[in-house]
């Protein structure tokens, strides 16, 4: 299987750690990531309006490139995953969008949602398998109490994302167990961090993040892991008095697989 990989704008810049650790671990786990040539930014937010065709094109181009190279597309950033997965669903199920996009792109073979979009965590769970992953852990993160922060975009809308139970997700908690740490469940793990309000309303972000930070700390978490660069930014930069550290899940994975030793990182 070819693991076509869509890094997205933020992973090439401000969230390099998420990307670098992901590639390293994928290599070690036997699913080397092949970056799509010429990918374009996905737009970061799903264009909800049915008439927003131009806004869907970059996602479709990535999906078509993956279709023509084996049919699988791996994503990592929560926002990219959300946008690409939902646009793929539109291309499969919404006739009008499918027709307009294909009419514009004029592809040799029209695209109708054939590509299988997998989030990196889904590859770990469904392709590698958590049991097999566990066998590769050389440095279990014993004694670490980790709160998984899902945010909104990975889970919702559940019907389209079909990633995990939207109200009782467990993929990240199971991942935390596999790498030898203790998952901490707290109620706000699937509530919004205030997202793009980081740009327009910092006070709102602070109010919302304080609640999430306190909620996780009260439940006994000592740190967060997340898959989303914007969640990571808000949790850290807009925290109040409680400021639990935040890492990307690929960083703790690299740590558990012993891939950080001897390196400059």
């Amino acid at each position: 299987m070819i693991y076509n990989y869509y890094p997205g704008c933020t992973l090439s810049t401000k969230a390099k750690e998420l990307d670098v650790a992901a590639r390293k671990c994928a290599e070690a786990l036997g699913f080397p990531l092949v970056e799509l040539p010429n990918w374009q930014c996905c737009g970061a937010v799903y264009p909800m309006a049915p008439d927003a065709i131009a806004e869907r094109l970059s996602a479709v181009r990535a999906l078509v490139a993956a279709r023509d190279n084996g049919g699988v597309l791996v994503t990592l950033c929560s926002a990219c995953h959300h946008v690409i997965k939902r646009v793929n669903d539109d291309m499969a199920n919404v006739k009008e969008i499918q027709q307009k996009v294909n009419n514009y792109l004029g592809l040799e073979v029209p695209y109708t949602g054939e590509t299988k979009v997998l989030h990196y965590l889904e590859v770990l769970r469904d392709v590698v398998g958590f049991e097999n992953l566990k066998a590769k852990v050389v440095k279990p993160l014993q004694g670490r109490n980790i709160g998984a922060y899902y945010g909104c975009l990975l889970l919702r809308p559940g019907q389209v994302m079909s990633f995990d139970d939207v109200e009782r997700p467990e993929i990240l908690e199971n991942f935390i167990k596999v790498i030898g740490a203790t998952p901490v469940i707290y109620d706000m793990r699937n509530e919004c961090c205030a997202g793009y309000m980081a740009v327009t309303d910092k006070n709102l972000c602070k109010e919302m993040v304080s609640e999430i930070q306190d909620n996780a700390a009260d439940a006994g978490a000592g740190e967060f892991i997340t898959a989303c660069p914007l969640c990571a930014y808000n949790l850290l930069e807009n925290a109040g008095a409680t400021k639990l550290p935040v890492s990307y899940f690929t960083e703790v994975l690299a740590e558990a697989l012993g891939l950080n030793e001897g390196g400059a990182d």
Partner: protein
Amino acid sequence: MVINNKERAEMLRQLAGTNVSLCIQCGRCSANCPVAWKMDVLPHRFVYELLNGGNVDVLLEAKSPWKCLSCFSCAERCPKGVSPAAIMEAVRLTHIRAQGNNKLNPADLENYDDKMPQQAIVAAFRKFNK
């Protein structure tokens, strides 16, 4: 061209692409909205005012769409599969698609702190500008 309330309601319904007539006004969308406490018009009203006899002006004048996070909590938790999030989007688009109505100034980009992820900037410019 002057269009009446009924026609504007129909335009917004089209742009939102969600079936408002399924709504039972249970208020669960508003109860689950993380920024409801900052809104002047709550999410369930965005559905209600698009039903027959609704008042679209209330929605077009509301500040709520500029507080909405597009977190999809309302849509996910609606027992009838309605998406107030999509109506928020439709109202935002109605504003920013009109000339001269951009909310963000690209010149401000240099004032953003240097840790701000591209994702946030791209998202905000998609939501607040055309």
